[in-house]
């Protein structure tokens, strides 16, 4: 194995800048790795000549794996759905364009749950992804391909999207870092829409420094997304060694019932480390967060049912049916969408249908207000909230596929943050029975610098070794 594979992306970028390795060499190395992928992490790998990256480019020519949810001009971009099979968009997502311009060329497109709907990557329209720590287990989802590729060393770094946990939960299950930014921090232009009021893209990386570096080059207002905002300060590379003066709140609602013992142990160890580093830990309530899953599974499917109405066999994707227009729509959608996508479209359409709108959608929007109020109140007392990212370690393939509700509850700890629009990161906290356990840190809107600094200090103290997943 090349010693270059032992480097983080930021370290590899340094080597390129120092002239010790060329960007082209690095691209070829990872292209070979991605082509040899046995985990199902990649859906497409670039055939292009390695791009000519200027030696002073901030991202050093270090290649980037891109979740299939992002449109990339001329490159297959199907959101891992059969209904978009073969689609090659005429434009590139802003986040991808910015990272390419900063010197991170696109290495390939990564597998995911179809339209980002899932927590195990088993809902991909093409094939599941295997967890590099144990190939009988799922990598999490929906950004499972991005997480597995980074963990296994098939890509130096990756981007994904998070609607209810789709960056943080797979990062947790694969033993890497994943951050969901504040809603609006990164443009959603060119990200195939799932639930527009929740969707946000962010980095999946080997360590916290890589996450900060990628994030720094993704943020900012974009005239193509009117919900995007200028980031209020410069995104700094983290270097905190201590947590002196920082107050951490552990909500009992997200760390007690339902959290398995091995995960709880890692959380307890992390709490001790926080205290050793000078931080103060106290209990802080998020009383409405147990209703997060219920609110989320009204709001997200409702928005999805509207967003996915455009897939009807008229403008792109394969067309089915040879009768009238109605049968064209119905047969194209019946053949193109997988079971989970159909379930969510049905759920969302039901929740928005006449007579049920107020009971479901209206109420869920009010629960969302209560959850956001909980966070506001908590952040008056503490600087950061500390929870497990996932109540369990990676589960076995097939274990939750027969029970949609059990699958939905995988996102129990990650769903409240996007409902409140606040940023959160998952970092590896340790292993439980040989499988990674993620620790989540959440902060107020636009507190990414604080989150990254605290995550960095903890990362140094934890000293997690991810080499067990590299193949």
């Amino acid at each position, binding site marked *: 194995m090349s010693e270059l594979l032992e480097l983080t992306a930021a370290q590899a970028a340094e080597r390129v800048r120092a002239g010790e390795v060329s960007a082209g060499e690095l691209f070829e190395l990872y292209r070979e790795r991605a082509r040899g992928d046995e985990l199902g992490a990649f859906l497409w790998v670039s055939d292009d000549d390695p791009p000519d990256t200027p030696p002073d480019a901030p991202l050093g020519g270090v290649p980037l794996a891109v979740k299939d949810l992002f449109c990339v001009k001329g490159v297959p971009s199907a959101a891992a759905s059969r209904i978009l099979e073969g689609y090659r968009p005429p434009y590139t997502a802003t986040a991808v364009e910015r990272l390419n311009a900063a010197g991170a060329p696109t290495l390939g497109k990564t597998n995911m749950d179809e339209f980002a709907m899932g927590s195990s990557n088993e809902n991909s329209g093409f094939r599941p992804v295997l967890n590099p720590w144990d190939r009988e287990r799922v990598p999490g989802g929906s950004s499972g391909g991005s997480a597995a590729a980074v963990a296994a060393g098939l890509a130096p770094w990756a981007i994904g999207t998070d609607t209810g946990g789709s960056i943080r939960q797979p990062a947790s299950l694969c033993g890497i870092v994943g951050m969901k930014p504040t809603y609006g921090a990164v443009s959603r232009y060119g990200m195939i829409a799932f639930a527009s009021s929740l969707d946000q893209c962010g980095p999946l990386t080997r360590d916290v420094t890589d996450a900060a570096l990628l994030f720094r080059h993704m943020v900012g207002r974009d005239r193509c997304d009117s919900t995007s905002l200028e980031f209020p300060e410069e995104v700094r590379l983290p270097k905190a060694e201590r947590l002196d003066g920082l107050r951490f709140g552990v909500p009992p609602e997200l760390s007690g019932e339902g959290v398995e013992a091995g995960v709880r142990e890692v959380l307890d160890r992390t709490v001790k480390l926080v205290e050793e580093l000078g931080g103060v830990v106290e209990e802080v309530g998020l009383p409405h967060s147990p209703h997060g899953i219920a609110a989320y599974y009204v709001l997200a499917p409702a928005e999805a049912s509207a967003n996915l109405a455009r897939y009807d066999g008229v403008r792109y994707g394969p067309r089915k049916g040879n009768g009238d227009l109605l049968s064209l729509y119905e047969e194209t*959608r019946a053949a193109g969408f997988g079971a989970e996508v159909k379930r969510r479209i049905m759920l969302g359409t039901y929740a928005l249908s006449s007579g049920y709108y107020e009971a479901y959608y209206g109420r869920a929007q009010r629960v969302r207000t209560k959850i956001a109020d909980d966070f506001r109140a908590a952040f008056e007392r503490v600087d950061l909230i500390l929870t497990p990212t996932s109540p369990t370690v990676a589960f076995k393939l097939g274990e939750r596929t027969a029970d949609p509700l059990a699958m939905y509850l995988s996102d129990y700890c990650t769903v409240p943050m996007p409902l409140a629009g606040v940023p959160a990161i998952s970092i590896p906290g340790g292993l439980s029975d040989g499988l990674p356990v993620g620790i989540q840190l959440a902060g107020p809107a636009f507190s990414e610098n604080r989150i990254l600094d605290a995550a960095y200090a903890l990362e140094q103290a934890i000293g997690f070794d991810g080499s067990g997943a590299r193949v």
Partner: protein
Amino acid sequence: MIDRDQVLHVARLARLRLDDQEVERMSGELATILDHIDKIGELDLDDVEPTSHVIQVENVLRPDEPRPSLPREDALAQAPDPAEGGFRVPSPGGA
């Protein structure tokens, strides 16, 4: 709680054709999920404002300046049946 007719009605609204097996499975699965969701019915939400957008944003406007848009041939390049500069579909009233 959600019977076969309701499933078929919603599927029709969503332009999804479901086979018999899917209808049966959907009715059971939606019932389980809705049971969980119904727990939000226990909360007192009478004086709570709904949230549709989490970050406060004022009206976002831009100058009304013409600029080139996606060329027609690029927009049609992915269509299953482009014709005469547009997207061809069968007659809504039947073939």
